[in-house]
């Protein structure tokens, strides 16, 4: 029925080319107008941020509470250590003057540190985590007082006596020492007040950009300022090298790569598919027939993008450009069918439309169904791909029905038959018909062999493996890590509670849990703001035996040569500690946040949150997750957590999307054919191709990631076309139908491969991974489509009882 419908449309268009052209142009103009509204998403995070709530939460926490969005600039003075400070100062000067940055520094802010120190001094005894029984033991006291005496007698001790005598056991120094951890940067030494590497050859400039690193314009502005700083550094310190790493650098590099890939993909795809088209049909003028439907499909896809109302990512655009290779398939099938010798185009074309119309319609529908499965993906980019590619397919089919009947007759009244020469396609189908058992057995064996590795398919949610960094960026990363450490190893635990004290108590429990998991460099805000319970316990320790404590101090002081009454001020402070109350920790936490540059406390829907930064070996994170589980309100935030969660999403999405696409396509075929056997013959190539694709990927150690997981639903939607077209040769009255269809499947596959081939060689990993997976899927489904349906059909004919 659909064949007759397409025949009628074809005849109508051929009778009324003028109105048809006008309609076509109107649609192109309308869609083109809508396409001008398309906004390119320069926010790389949009690829995943809409995946689910947990992903969004992790991303937001990483952005707001860690240095993930800061730019870390290593001023490498290995070649000239004497220049490194001047270079760092130049970087800070240029970045501070730039609107693209809020702040840049390579020093611990002395004023902020002094402000925090003043706040902490009056509370030092209750902040000191050491047990007074240990610090006031005779041996420990002797050591402390010896140190105190040495400091008092130092030449520059003028004016320091008061503070030194009030803190004989250096409680403030102990507390400040606990704040010197720099999670993720074990190679950093900030004790001098500068952010120096421990080997002394580099300075770390911490730069806080004012914009969003994943917004292309902001990242570009940040990196432009860094380049200006590099120019200035070259003037003052020609031998110093700048190595910026961070989200802004990587996002800016990625955007440039994606833009390059999009432009390359579109141009290269067009050239390649038209080249393949001409190579097979050997009639360059037919390109004039093939181009308008392509443009029509692209226009419709652009219109869909414009209607979406949301920014479209460059990766989606690159994928959509590759789908031009799909769009030309309908032209190929139509032209290959319209090749009866001696017939006029006016007669042959509608007949061809009737003959292949059913196949084309079914193929297009199955493609839409397969793409439709991507609408159920977690990843927003895949949902966009489904809509744009769907628009391209619908547009291409409609464009063929509109433009081919208009343009083809204008090439001449008679069309020379497409020479379906003997080629690999005809050899394949002939061999399949001649040796069906061999083919089926071989296919089964191949399926079993590849099913084994396919069962070990791995999933990779690590964005770093698809977010390609340039060679220069990778070199800078390696140099930074070898000097300072891997900043990406830092994470934090966000603790929520109804009130601040409960949050602080939970934070203390988190700190203990992290230590038990072997994680280090914990910079808990409870160092400066312990919970009320901890304060009470420490107060008890100091005050329960206060007189004994002071007695021990006086005894040791006399031995060390201190005069009577030398520690009167300390005794007063101890009295005040025992009788007074601890101030509200919020002020201290705010000062702590000012010094570290990150908020460690804030308000949340649950009440209050407190963040506990840490670092450590990634292998210990699973243990950390386990030990944190009993702590209410504690959430582990780490790049690895994000990766783990994304991997879980992929592992869930792959079978789900493949299942939806496969079931929908199978149902479609059953409804269309009403014969399970025929539906199975059409499905067989894509089923085997699915196993083969997964098996080959797994055997090649290529994991399914956020991008290439689209290959299975795409396979169901695209690969099924080949099986349908070849299978439908069984009911095609053309005696050469199988050869014609095998030829058109080969050409269609070649053009699709040409389209996705441009993706496979893309610079940006996320795009290349899609291209390579789809290339594999299309190749295998096309090859299997030439072998399996003819072989299965031959077996079915042989198995039918011959009429007597």
């Amino acid at each position, binding site marked *: 029925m659909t064949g007759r419908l397409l025949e009628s449309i074809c005849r109508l268009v051929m009778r009324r080319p003028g109105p048809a052209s006008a309609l076509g142009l109107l649609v192109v103009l309308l869609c083109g107008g809508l396409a001008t509204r398309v906004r390119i998403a320069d926010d790389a995070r949009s690829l995943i941020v809409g995946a689910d709530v947990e992903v969004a939460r992790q991303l937001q926490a990483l952005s707001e509470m860690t240095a993930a969005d800061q730019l870390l600039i290593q001023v490498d003075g290995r070649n000239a250590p004497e220049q490194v400070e001047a270079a760092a100062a130049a970087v800070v000067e240029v970045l501070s003057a730039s609107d693209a940055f809020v702040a840049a520094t390579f*020093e*611990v802010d*002395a*004023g902020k*540190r*002094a402000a925090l120190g003043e706040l902490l001094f009056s509370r030092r005894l209750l902040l000191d985590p050491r047990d007074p029984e240990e610090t006031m033991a005779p041996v420990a006291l002797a050591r402390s007082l*010896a*140190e105190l*005496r*040495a*400091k*008092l*007698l*130092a*030449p*520059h001790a*003028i*004016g*320091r*006596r*008061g503070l030194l*005598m009030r803190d004989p056991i250096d409680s403030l120094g102990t507390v400040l020492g606990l704040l010197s951890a720099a999670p993720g940067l074990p190679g950093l030494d900030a*004790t*001098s*007040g*500068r952010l120096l590497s421990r080997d002394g050859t580099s300075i770390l400039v911490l730069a806080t950009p004012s914009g969003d690193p994943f917004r292309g314009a902001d990242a570009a502005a940040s990196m432009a300022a860094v380049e200006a700083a590099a120019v200035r550094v070259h003037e003052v310190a020609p031998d110093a090298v700048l190595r910026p790493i961070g989200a802004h650098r990587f996002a800016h590099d990625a955007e440039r790569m994606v833009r390059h890939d999009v432009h390359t993909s579109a141009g290269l795809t067009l050239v390649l598919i038209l080249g393949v088209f001409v190579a097979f049909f050997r009639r360059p003028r037919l390109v004039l027939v093939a181009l308008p439907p392509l443009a029509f499909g692209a226009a419709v896809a652009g219109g869909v993008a414009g209607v979406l109302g949301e920014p479209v990512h460059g990766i989606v655009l690159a994928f959509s450009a590759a789908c031009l290779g799909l769009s030309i398939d309908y032209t190929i099938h139509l032209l290959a069918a319209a090749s009866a010798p001696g017939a006029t185009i006016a007669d042959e074309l509608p007949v061809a439309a009737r003959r292949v119309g059913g196949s084309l319609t079914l193929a297009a529908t199955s493609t839409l169904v397969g793409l439709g499965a991507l609408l159920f993906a977690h990843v927003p980019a895949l949902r966009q791909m489904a809509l744009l590619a769907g628009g391209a397919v619908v547009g291409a089919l409609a464009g063929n029905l509109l433009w081919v009947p208009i343009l083809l007759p204008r090439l001449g009244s008679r069309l020379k038959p497409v020479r379906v020469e003997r080629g690999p396609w005809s050899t394949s189908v002939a061999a399949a018909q001649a040796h069906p058992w061999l083919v089926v057995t071989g296919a089964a064996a191949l399926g079993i062999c590849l099913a084994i590795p396919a069962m070990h398919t791995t999933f990779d949610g690590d964005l770093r493996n698809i977010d390609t960094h340039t060679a220069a960026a990778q070199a800078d990363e390696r140099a930074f890590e070898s000097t300072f450490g891997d900043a990406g190893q830092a994470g934090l635990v966000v603790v929520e509670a109804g009130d601040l004290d409960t949050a602080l108590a939970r934070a203390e429990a988190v700190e203990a849990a992290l230590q038990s998991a072997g994680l280090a460099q914990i910079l808990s805000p409870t160092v400066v703001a312990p919970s009320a319970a901890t304060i009470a316990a420490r107060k008890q320790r100091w005050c329960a035996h206060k007189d004994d404590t002071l007695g021990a101090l006086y005894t040791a002081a006399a031995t060390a*040569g*201190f*005069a*009577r009454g*030398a520690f009167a001020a300390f005794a007063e402070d101890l009295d005040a500690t025992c009788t007074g109350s601890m101030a509200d920790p919020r002020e201290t936490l705010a000062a702590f946040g000012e010094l570290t540059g990150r908020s460690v406390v804030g308000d949340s829907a649950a009440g209050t949150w407190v963040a506990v930064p840490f670092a450590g070996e990634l292998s210990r994170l699973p243990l950390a997750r386990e030990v944190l589980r009993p702590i209410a309100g504690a959430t582990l935030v780490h790049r690895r957590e994000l990766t783990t969660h994304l991997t879980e999403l992929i592992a869930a999405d792959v079978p789900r999307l493949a299942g939806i696409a496969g079931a929908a396509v199978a149902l479609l075929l059953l409804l269309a054919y009403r014969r399970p056997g025929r539906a199975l013959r059409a499905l067989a190539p894509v089923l085997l191709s699915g196993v083969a694709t997964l098996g080959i990927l797994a055997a090649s150690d290529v994991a399914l990631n956020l991008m290439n997981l689209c290959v299975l639903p795409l396979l169901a939607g695209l690969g099924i076309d080949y099986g349908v077209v070849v299978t439908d040769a069984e009911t095609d009255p053309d005696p050469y139908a199988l050869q014609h269809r095998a030829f058109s499947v080969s050409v269609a596959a070649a053009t699709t491969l040409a389209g996705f081939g441009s993706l496979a060689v893309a610079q940006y990993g996320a795009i290349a991974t899609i291209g390579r997976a789809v290339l594999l899927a299309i190749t295998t489904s096309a090859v299997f489509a030439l072998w399996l349906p003819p072989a299965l059909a031959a077996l079915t004919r042989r198995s039918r009882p011959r009429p007597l």
Partner: protein
Amino acid sequence: MTAWLALVLLAGTPPDGGFRAIADQARNVHTLRARMLQEKQLAVLGEVIRSSGTFLFERPRRLRMDLGGEDGTVLIIDGDRMVTHYKGLGKTERLRLSSDERASRIVDHLFLILEGDPIALGEVYDLEVRGREPLQIRLTPKSGSLAKAIRHVDAELDRRGFVAAITVSETNGDRTTWRFVDAVVNARLPASSFVLAAP
């Protein structure tokens, strides 16, 4: 060192031939090497602690005080960098003065006294000449946080144009005296003089 003469002039005491000679010598003092005697009188220790060592000074802002004994220290200042090594403790502290306001103020005053910018000194201290042979001057802080910590500074000048002794009297009663003897002016000081050698 020339500044001391300017101070005297500011104080209104006419210079005589002795001051003129000191002023001429002070202009030419670029380095100083001397034996150093430190005397600290701290109320909390109840006794006067004496120590001796060596003193090195180089314009514009380098010095090394190396005091021996159980409580001995090595103090090195080189521009913005300060290193303190406590010999008895085996402990070393390194500091950038620009990151520690308190330490920076103390060091600034130390150099203010040792080098003597007449304009800066005049803004900070009131001047009183207390003796002429040798020239002895008392500097009293005018106001501000300095006056809260320091009562006065007594300095004795050598004819060769350098400070031979300094006594800092703090408001809490503590007193620190440095005396520089066997001084050698403009000796060539090795570059390693202002670097703390590894123990």
